[in-house]
């Protein structure tokens, strides 16, 4: 038991799980942070990304690694379209609409989620999909790693770090953090809030689609696979504090660790009990998230 715990095997597993959670949560956090909307359909974007990679691979033999940037770009384009097509019009229609969206964003996006899931089920059948790619096992010492899991970790990890750096270093990133922190003040200092929101939608959708591509290499999925990703994403961003992107990334890793090591110590049966237990416990102790800043709007 001890050697299982100390083995690199569990660590690797925790990192893979955590990095995918981080990538999923990233987009969710950006969209919530800048626009205060709870995108319950986020997991369905992951599902769409998975289907895109699946069809690319099974129909045209395109490796998911090659498809990944393309799918991410399509995701970004979709985010752009949704923002310009729906949200920009609604926000322009007046403050009344914006307040309404924020208040009812849960139900609105849930409606969108249902439409997407069932439209995909109608188009592609509800059957499970999976494919085998990069499934040769790499062994280093006592550590065994399937190629596709290494790839997923690498890509998810790099993307998260890249976005984190982008937020820290670039001008748009700074503008984004300003909008997340205090929107009205950002307007006042001349931040192009519209551009920031557009960018967060684009990056948000793109990262979700990318997570989907990576996920498709690792497990089976169906049109209804999105929901667990949405839930995982929400747990992560709430633990980290809504809108706090960096803390979200950390929370994702913590979640991956709890899941993997917690299960190893107890039993696979308790995985969800541990996950939700930690989540509920943490939130009851820290009602604004583990890493909440004092200035967070309720």
């Amino acid at each position: 038991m001890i050697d299982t715990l100390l083995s690199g095997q569990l660590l690797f597993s925790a990192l893979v799980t955590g990095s995918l959670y981080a990538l999923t949560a990233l987009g969710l956090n950006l969209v919530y942070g800048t626009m205060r909307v709870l995108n319950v359909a986020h997991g369905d974007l992951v599902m769409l990304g998975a289907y895109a990679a699946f069809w690319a691979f099974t129909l045209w033999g395109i490796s998911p690694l090659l498809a990944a940037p393309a799918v991410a770009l399509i995701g970004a384009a979709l985010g752009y379209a949704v923002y310009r097509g729906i949200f920009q019009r609604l926000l322009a229609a007046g403050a009344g609409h914006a307040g309404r969206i924020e208040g009812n964003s849960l139900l609105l996006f849930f409606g969108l989620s249902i439409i997407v899931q069932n439209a995909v089920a109608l188009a592609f059948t509800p059957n499970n999909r999976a494919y085998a790619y990069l499934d040769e096992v790499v062994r280093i010492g006592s550590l065994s790693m399937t190629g596709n899991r290494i790839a997923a970790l690498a890509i998810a990890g790099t993307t998260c770090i890249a976005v984190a750096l982008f937020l820290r270093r670039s001008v748009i990133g700074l503008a984004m953090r300003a909008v997340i922190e205090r929107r009205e003040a950002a307007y006042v200092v001349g931040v192009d809030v519209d551009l920031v929101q557009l960018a967060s939608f684009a990056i948000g959708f793109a990262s979700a689609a990318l997570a989907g591509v990576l996920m498709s290499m690792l497990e089976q999925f169906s049109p209804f696979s999105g929901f667990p990703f949405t839930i995982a994403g929400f747990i992560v961003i709430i633990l980290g504090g809504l809108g706090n992107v960096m803390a979200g990334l950390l929370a994702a890793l913590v979640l991956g660790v709890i899941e993997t090591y917690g299960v190893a110590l107890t039993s696979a049966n308790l995985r969800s009990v541990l996950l939700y237990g930690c989540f509920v416990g943490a939130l009851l102790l820290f009602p604004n998230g583990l890493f909440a800043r004092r200035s967070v709007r309720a």
Partner: protein
Amino acid sequence: MKSSRMSRRSLVSGLFALAAMVAAAGAPAQADKPLRIGFSMARTGMLANATPSQLNTYELWKEQVNARGGMNVGGVKRKVEFVIYDDQSKPEQAVRIYEKLITDDKVDLLLAPWGTPFHIAIAPVVEKYKFPLVGNTAASVSLREVKPGYIWFTTSAIPDRIGVELTAFLKAQGVKSVVVLANVLPFTKEIKNFLEPELKKAGIDIKLSSEYPPDIKDMTAMLTQAKQANVDAVLALAYPGDSVLYAKQAKELGVNSPFQFIAIGPSDAFFPKAVGAASAEGVVTIAHWAPRPEWKGSQAFYDAYVKKFGEDPDFLNSALAWMSLEILEAAVAKNGLNKEKIRAMISTETFETINGKVKFNGVQNVITPTAFVQYQKGRLQIVWPASIATGRYEPKKGW
């Protein structure tokens, strides 16, 4: 103000109109001549990816029957029409659907849904309306508690028999130690409950016994321990969803015990496509059917299914579905739509099916043996028991 109020109202009424149009478009044409057969099938929800094998089989049968001029109803041929509803993977929906089929749609015959919970849920309904129904994809010891009368179960894969037979199979291969991994869903959990005492009785050492939830995403911890146990056989009591995960992670971690058993999943054509032919090779799973010259129609069924759907039938579920159809066909050919006579015949006679003879004692099929199949060179072969074997068991050579 007025225009937006109007447009809001008209939008809502528009939605209702749309709904009504869809409903009208879908309404079945009123006709007395076609034979209407009703059933529910999970097209959405958790089980949606397990049901196609059964639905396909029903559709194939309908096609063949109608090509022959229709189903033989007491000497008169009538074209078959299906009335299908989606039970959304919810047993209580299935209850409502069968109530609807019987009292509202007034169908002529009923076919079974997919899965044990659904069969058990609708048993009281068919009992109440005295409507005979030949079940198929249901397997639980609690089936025996269902009042015999209007429902029967063709399956032989009942968990207590599986426990006994699997243990015998393992003993015959000289297996001394096992690891048992069980999904907590009813069927696999039941198998575990019966299997472990049998293993202990046979003196086989259970080095590790672990359970996991149906939505598990990562088996690393469990499989690392399984690998360290270094046993002769790993028995993964899995469902289709986690069967693929198990195979992939067993490969990654190198869980290479020569006897690899996965309870449900590998009998479906989806499995080798998802994990790769090399990984699927040598996996043992539950099924009691394969095309055999001794079983009339088995090869024909296999060929017809492959021709129509471009993939193998599910050796467990598709076969069971077809068997139930054959039995129903035989009963209706002789007795027309007289429900009491149909019931009497199904309860007492022995039927010939693509799986050999079938006879019911109470609700259970007492002839078909509990059996296991193995992937050999891309095809499933029955490897146990010897009485119906089509191939010989070979240890698995890694993933």
